[in-house]
């Protein structure tokens, strides 16, 4: 009985792990700025949302992504609702990709990810500059997008392992 309870607890924890990672990253904004590496930054949340909503949307629901966006706006200081909108745009792209893709592969996903971050970041930059009159450092934005794109396969590999573990644990 106790082992059954233990299994249920582990299953629940694993099931909510992507969600936990999402909220941890928006609250904490892991930025490595203390390492003093000039320009180095990447958007972990974009990678997380893109991967999980594309591969296994049942672990990350849209309502939570919307809330995570609100949290991110408060932490970062952007207009409230703005990040939610951007995150949901990523979800829209992944939902579309899921509908049109029969056999997913890494290269296709990676190129789609590049297209998605460029689209979302362009919308962000244009809206922040024109609508909200917030000055933006374009170079930093571009470098951030570059690192996010480059690091996608690394996190894809890690998330693939994690997803398999979650699937095995839940199906046991």
């Amino acid at each position, binding site marked *: 009985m106790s082992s059954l309870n233990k299994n249920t607890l582990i299953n629940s924890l694993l099931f909510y792990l992507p969600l936990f990672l999402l909220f941890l990253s928006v609250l904490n904004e892991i930025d490595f700025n*203390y390492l003093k590496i000039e320009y180095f930054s990447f958007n972990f949340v974009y990678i997380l949302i893109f991967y999980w909503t594309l591969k296994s949307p049942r672990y990350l629901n849209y309502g939570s992504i*919307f809330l995570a966006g609100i949290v991110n706006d408060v932490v970062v*200081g952007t207009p409230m609702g703005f990040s939610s909108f951007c995150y949901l745009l990523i979800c829209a792209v992944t939902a579309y990709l899921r509908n049109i893709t029969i056999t997913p592969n890494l290269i296709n996903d990676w190129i789609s990810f590049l297209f998605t971050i460029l689209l979302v970041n362009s919308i962000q930059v244009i809206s922040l500059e024109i609508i909200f009159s*917030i000055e933006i450092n374009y170079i930093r934005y571009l470098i951030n997008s570059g690192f996010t794109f480059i690091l996608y396969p690394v996190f894809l590999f890690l998330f693939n392992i994690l997803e398999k573990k979650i699937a095995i644990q839940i199906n046991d």
Partner: protein
Amino acid sequence: MASSRDDFVIAIRSAFLKKSYQQKFSLLTLIFSSLIVIILGNFNFKAIQYVKIGINEVIYRSSHIASLPENYFKNLNIKIDEHLSLYDQYKKNEIELNKLKEKKLSNDFLILENKKLRELINETIQSEDVYAKVLVDKDSPYLKSIVLNKGSKDNVKIGMAIVDKSYLVGKIIEVNYSNSRALLLSDLNSKIPVLIEPIDIHAVLSGSGKNHGVIEYTKDEYKQKINGNKMIVYTSGYGDLFKPGLPVGKMNTNNINKDNKVIFFSDFRQLDYVKIVDYEIGSGN
């Protein structure tokens, strides 16, 4: 041709409207909700302001707690760095201390003289200090700001100066009940009036979005006046934004023809505690 367009429409409709995989809301509903939140956020209705302050209070505290493990590693990294450079630092400090001892004597005299001169023109500078802890310190590509644990209950107001030791760091841009957000001088949207000494030239210091500032809107001939001298940038006190004479940073005079960089005295990436200061400059005239 027509069937491929139909497929596209079906895929788009399915992506936006279908509630699959245990989703409680459709994407379209949530996208519209976020647009409504953005629009409402721009209105200054009291109810919306209260909701915003409530959300900020909860999220800032949660963010502070969530950042504790990362902050631990950050401090550990700094400590290791400090230990590794202990001897070099000691030698540098020893030389600097001797120089400072010499300077202090002349400074004491200048302070007294300054006090007497202010009394002579009936000018007084009163300041109220509030010490605050930095709750959230995020180096995002959007905004360079810090969240402090003091808010309207501690009489913090928008526009108050943020000082680290005696160096200017930024100003308050958002005040909640128990916390507030300060815009750092390095942010692209930060612009403050400054005085470049010893050449005595007024300018505007803008943030660069990186870890330094840039001198703007000043006389064209100021570069010739610099001539390799050590330039220190102080607040000028124009516009009554800040008290005059607050040290901000030093200029990199080697590359003066390439850029107008100002290296800040304070390291904005290592702020733990700061002082929120409200200056009141009174004049008898």
